[in-house]
């Protein structure tokens, strides 16, 4: 047995690769940010006021001995870091980024929930990017990822950092499946990052990737993903 055997990739990496491929081909640029994030980038800059019940929506891991640090609860913090840098560099929109990353929520684990999971953040800002563009972009992505016979629908939701905010569902194999949240970036968020909200607008989205993996490969349970079990790499 002389031939070289290539190692197998983790299914989540496969999902991330495909996702990045689809979005970078469209024209999005990859962005990244820290997992151990400061409260400002995780909450304040995202228009989540202190002592506001919205901070309860996500069970945050706070860091002992450092009230300023959290494990990021969403990849939306990458939006902020990217936009701050972008504005500082003196460049002007348009820009479109896609940011895959691990996020953390302190909740009990079960077949569909983990304390650590992957989100993919998308952000597109220009003078005229609209909600219809958001729907078009997400729809394009899921059709590429899961096939042409998928359908997208929006429902009203609330996130402090988007307005309007929506939750989107995907029709896949005859069933509506809740996929994630999105919306038009809140003007306060743009202004905080140094981007003039009276001139620029755009959308952001942040679905979880485990959900996509589970649907695409028909997995019964997400927990084995983090058990270091090579039987998981069967795709």
């Amino acid at each position, binding site marked *: *047995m002389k031939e*070289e*055997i290539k*190692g*197998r*990739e*983790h*299914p989540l*990496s496969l999902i991330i*690769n*495909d996702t990045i*491929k689809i979005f*970078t081909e469209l*024209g999005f*640029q*990859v*962005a990244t940010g*820290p*997992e*151990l994030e400061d409260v400002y980038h995780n909450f304040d800059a995202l228009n989540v006021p202190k*002592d506001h019940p919205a901070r309860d*929506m996500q069970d945050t*891991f*706070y*860091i002992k001995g450092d009230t300023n640090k959290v*494990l990021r609860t969403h990849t939306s913090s990458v939006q902020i870091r990217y936009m701050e840098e972008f504005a500082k560099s003196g460049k002007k929109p348009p820009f*479109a980024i896609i940011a*895959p990353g*691990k996020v953390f929520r302190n*909740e*009990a*684990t079960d077949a569909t929930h983990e*304390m*650590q999971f992957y989100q993919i953040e998308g952000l597109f800002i220009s003078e*005229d990017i*609209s*909600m*219809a*563009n958001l*729907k*078009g*972009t997400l729809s394009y992505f899921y059709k590429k990822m899961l096939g042409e016979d998928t359908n997208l629908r*929006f*429902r*009203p939701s609330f996130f402090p950092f988007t*307005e*309007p905010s929506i*939750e989107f569902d995907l029709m896949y194999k005859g069933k509506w499946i809740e996929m994630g949240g999105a919306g038009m970036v809140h003007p306060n968020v743009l202004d905080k990052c140094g981007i003039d909200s009276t001139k620029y*607008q755009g959308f952001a989205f942040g679905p979880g990737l485990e959900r996509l993996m589970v649907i695409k*490969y*028909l997995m019964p*349970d997400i927990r084995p993903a*983090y*058990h*270091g*079990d*090579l*039987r998981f*790499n*069967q795709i």
Partner: protein
Amino acid sequence: MKISYNWLQNYFEEKLPRPEEISEGIIFHSFEVDEIEKIKDDTVFDIKILPDRAHDCLSHWGIAKEVSMIFNMKISSPNGFLKLISEVQPLKPVIGWTSQSETSLKIEIENDKCLRYMGRVVRNIKVGESPSWLKEKLNAIGQKSINNIVDAANFVMYDLGQPIHAFDLDKLEGESLIIRNGKEGEKLTTLDKKEINLDDSILIIADEKSPLAIAGIKGGTKAEVDLNTKNIVIEVANFDATTTRKTAKKINIQTDAVKRYEHGITPELCPIVMDSISEIIYAIAGGEVESIIDIYPNKVLQNTISISVEYINKRLGSDFSKEEIESVWNKLNFVYRELDGEYKIEVPFLRADLIGPHDLTEEVIRILGYDRLVEKLPEFTKDSQITNNTYLKLLLVRSNLLFLGYGEVMTYVFRDKGEVEVLASATGKNFLRTNLTDGLRESIKLNILNLPLLDLKEVKVFEIGTVFFNGGEVMHVAYGDKKNVTEVNIDDFCEKFNLLSEDNLHVESPSQNDTEKKIFKMWSNYPFISRDVAVWMPESDDKEQLKQIFVEEGTDLLIKAPFLFDSFTKEGRTSYAYRLVFQSYEKTLTDEEINPIMEKITSKISSYGWEVR
């Protein structure tokens, strides 16, 4: 929040659509509906009110307004319950109390965290059992009936969204209520018998001597209304959202009142609610109603928003007409005027969530319907190369290790020791990993046990991930086998293998060319049995024939394709060594079950003239 269909119906003259239609309408225009439950002749919705609407929608009135908007149905005026009372108790004129008498009640606000306080005395009431309509309404949404006064207060809260409290006037020291900070050393026993130590961060309602209630959170036993109560003070008040929330957290008491106050109800709601509760109490407990004392130091100002049709269509990417937009303003009962293409909208006090034009844009699209958005792929400037350095390194390192035969794993960030600690963790593992090696070693151990299931000759794994130190986080890469695990900073790895050379830097994301649909198969958690079989065959014979014997005779328990782990040729004969793995999804297999299968395989092999080694 639990919302009763019959209760909602009280708001409308017209018959409501069926519960399923109501639910669907709410889901696509307002909120998620978690559950619809039939309870006797009623249907109860469990509606997940969004945080920005909790100030006006944690109530049947709030939901009735949404329903009115969604289904274009007019809310009958006055609010439904009045009609209900007059139907059930037609003998008592419900407006009798308007001939109210002077009051001796005094109210004093000492702290500006109390935004408004309305108090009203009602004398000579009869505390007792609630009428059946009231009990039914409360039961439908899962609330127990206590007595007519408490029930009335609860009913109005679930109806209009404003918490109400009632004190037994005769248990008060004097006829004054003071809203002030607690004092060190003061104590209060709550209605559910919990003793709270007060301090000056806790806003309370007190009489001249001692605390009666924790403002906006919970009443105390001192002035509790009981079956002997004759005279009461009704409190309809408003307290600062953040203060209420912080205090509730501090003393660890969560109530329906807190849930409402912490989202910032408007103080403008108080008079409507005072009228309602007075009418109900008068109708079901009688008494003489005195005039209201209303302390409202800083009147809330009404917000005005300017917005144009162009603004809305530009944000939404839509083409809504002026008439359609105005239909939304009308459904929301907005007072507006148009000036040079701009609407000036007076936002109702009860919609404190509407701050700017972006908020009104959401109102337009959720009311007209998200299905009205036409999907449009935006224009991009295309450049599909990865330029982000961190991600580029990750791709290069991963593809390098995969090429060297390492399988990729991901392990948990949470460990039981480390440098960075989280305050609390649902698993009890409170530290963030300082290395990948510990997790990788566990992975190697697990995979060695499962080696026969893996089609591998040896276990080689890697992980790329973040590790955490006091100084911050670093991206590491670790790779290894049963003998050795190597862990380095990702930059060092890139340097060592010269991954960041110029010709590597034009990278696109890899992707699967999956024309075929791949489906994950969950493994069995029962132990497996593996058997190795080595067979001598003439060099000219095809090993596929041998493989076929294994598959045919192996039964369903042979859970994997036979794995060829060794072969060599000598003197015209080839030895093929295959590994067969047996496993059941239902039970632990025994040798007794596998031996007959192996015997059949052996004899079949012999019948071809091949030799089992």
